[in-house]
């Protein structure tokens, strides 16, 4: 069944080169645009962009955990662990931004490590529920404990970020700070995703018993994914804490968690970029729907339900379908649409 090798032609080489470098070009263009936007955006939109960068770290780290097949409901609380860690360290120890952010990541990783011990006993559905309950436990501790967490009012007057005497708090520098941290975090997670460790995670999702039998210590790798994901959630939390200057338990509640799930579900988790696509689309939709006010959760709850029922693979699953459709002649496309409609009709 081997494909007969065609004689290499110049045209083919260009085609291959295009295919290989096109994504890189797109990426470079996006990055360049984001650099320019850092200076050009209106203040309000710059704020949205900063939150967007933080959320990119959140969705990417969340996806990292889901590659093992574990869907956590505690990710936002782990982000909160990073925020609280960063706020407390910056305020009481007076350490600089560059030290606080990784320490916040480590704080979240430690909390994540404590979570994963009982969570390993569960899988799939139980994992979801149990992680929700454990996340709530931690959130309730923040609500309850006055010192050092400040109870319901949280922590205020978090020092502004500074690096070797450089003030990062004005919008433009903070935009670039978050941008760079996001790039670094995403790059590291991308490397992990494509490494042997990433493949081990995905193999657990695919068939955990087989993975175990070929020598992959499933418990260890599930823990590793959860703790690594928590670490990056903690980094995102630190960026958020510095951005807002004050945090309280409500920043990390169930609503935020459900939005995180909406981003990820809308985008899809099969590819590395899916959750980011979902985040982009939902962020834009969220801004457009600002006039809807309180009806927005209803709308996004509906979006979540719609995607899970009708497009469980998320937007990314449309990419091969669309590119396939573009390649097939119209007659066949009609035929395909018809079969799709009939199967759809028979399903409902």
């Amino acid at each position, binding site marked *: *069944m*081997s494909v007969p090798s065609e004689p290499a032609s110049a045209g083919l080489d260009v085609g291959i080169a295009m295919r290989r470098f096109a994504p890189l070009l797109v990426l470079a263009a996006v990055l360049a645009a984001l650099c320019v936007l850092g200076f050009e955006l209106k203040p309000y939109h710059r704020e949205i962009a900063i939150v967007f960068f933080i959320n990119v770290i959140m969705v990417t780290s969340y996806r990292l955990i889901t590659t093992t097949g574990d869907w956590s409901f505690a990710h936002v609380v782990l982000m909160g662990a990073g925020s609280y860690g960063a706020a407390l360290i910056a305020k009481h120890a007076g350490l600089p931004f560059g030290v606080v952010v990784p320490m916040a990541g480590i704080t979240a990783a430690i909390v994540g490590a404590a979570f994963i011990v009982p969570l390993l006993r569960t899988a799939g559905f139980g994992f979801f529920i149990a992680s929700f309950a454990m996340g709530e436990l931690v959130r309730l501790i923040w609500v309850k404990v006055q010192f050092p967490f400040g109870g319901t009012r949280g922590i205020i007057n978090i020092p502004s970020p500074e690096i070797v005497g450089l003030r990062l708090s004005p919008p433009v520098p903070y935009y670039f700070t978050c941008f760079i941290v996001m790039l670094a975090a995403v790059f*590291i997670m991308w*490397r*992990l995703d494509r*490494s*042997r*460790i*990433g*493949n*081990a995670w*995905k*193999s657990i999702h*695919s*068939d955990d*018993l*087989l*993975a*175990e*039998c*070929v*020598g*992959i*210590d*499933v*418990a260890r790798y599930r823990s*590793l994914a959860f703790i*690594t994901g928590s670490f990056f959630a903690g980094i995102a939390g630190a960026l958020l804490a510095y951005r807002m200057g004050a945090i309280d338990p409500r920043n990390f509640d169930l609503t935020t968690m459900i939005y995180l799930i909406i981003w990820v579900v809308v985008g899809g988790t*099969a590819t590395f970029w899916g959750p980011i696509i979902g985040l982009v689309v939902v962020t834009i939709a969220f801004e457009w729907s600002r006039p809807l006010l309180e009806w927005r959760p209803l709308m996004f709850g509906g979006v979540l339900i719609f995607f899970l029922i009708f497009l469980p693979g998320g937007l990314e699953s449309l990419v091969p379908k669309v590119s396939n459709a573009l390649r097939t002649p119209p007659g066949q496309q009609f035929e395909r649409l018809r079969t799709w409609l009939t199967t759809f009709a028979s399903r409902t």
Partner: protein
Amino acid sequence: MSLLEVRNVSKRFGGLLAVADLDMTVEEGEIRGIIGPNGAGKTTLFNVISGTYRPTSGDVFLDGNRLTGLRPSRIAGKGGVRTFQRSAMFSDFTVLENVSIARHLHARESLFGAIVGTARGMERANEVRALEILDFIGLGEFRDELAPNLSHGHQRALGVAMALATEPRILMLDEPVAGMNPAETERMTRIIRRLRDEWNITILLVEHDMKTVMGLCEYITVLNFGKKLAEGVPAEIVSNPDVIEAYLGSEDILGDDEFAA
């Protein structure tokens, strides 16, 4: 010393004693078959040896190392690996990637190494070995095919290739030819024999296809009701009245002639 020793192993599920106080030894370089009628406890025994189940009592030793209570990944590390009755594979990956993932034990990577990419050289050596295994199994030409696209026979062969990727001393095959057509069965039989002859791997197999078992195994253990019913070379097994009775049922199961047709 025997390579594999099963000592007084029992496994109970609720009220059912699936394996009852079983002893068995397998010598290095053997091809050993485990057979028995449906529900005889073959698969349970297999799962106990490979660490999928923890035995209710008794112990399993591989080359003198106690395996009891270890997880399958640890047992794989000690040289014991199993395949599955179903077609088991990592479905999002290509054939080569599947085997490469299964080389986990021999290509560990640290978190830092994964990020910086220090393991290039190791990965290349790893891939060479993975290809060697694929060529041996006869899947070399499908290396870049997605695993679920393979035919049934090739998927089962991929399962064996992945087990080989762990570099086992003993390979435990769970119905290696189930669902295969005669040509595929023949090919698999040849591969198993070569694994022992050329790669010096001890083989333990559970199989229902009697032609394959009788043709391949030098020594056979027959289970019935979780106990060892007979043990011996194929010729002995085939003519053993107890075994025939276990498979075909007893002549006098109907008691007196009340029911003679």
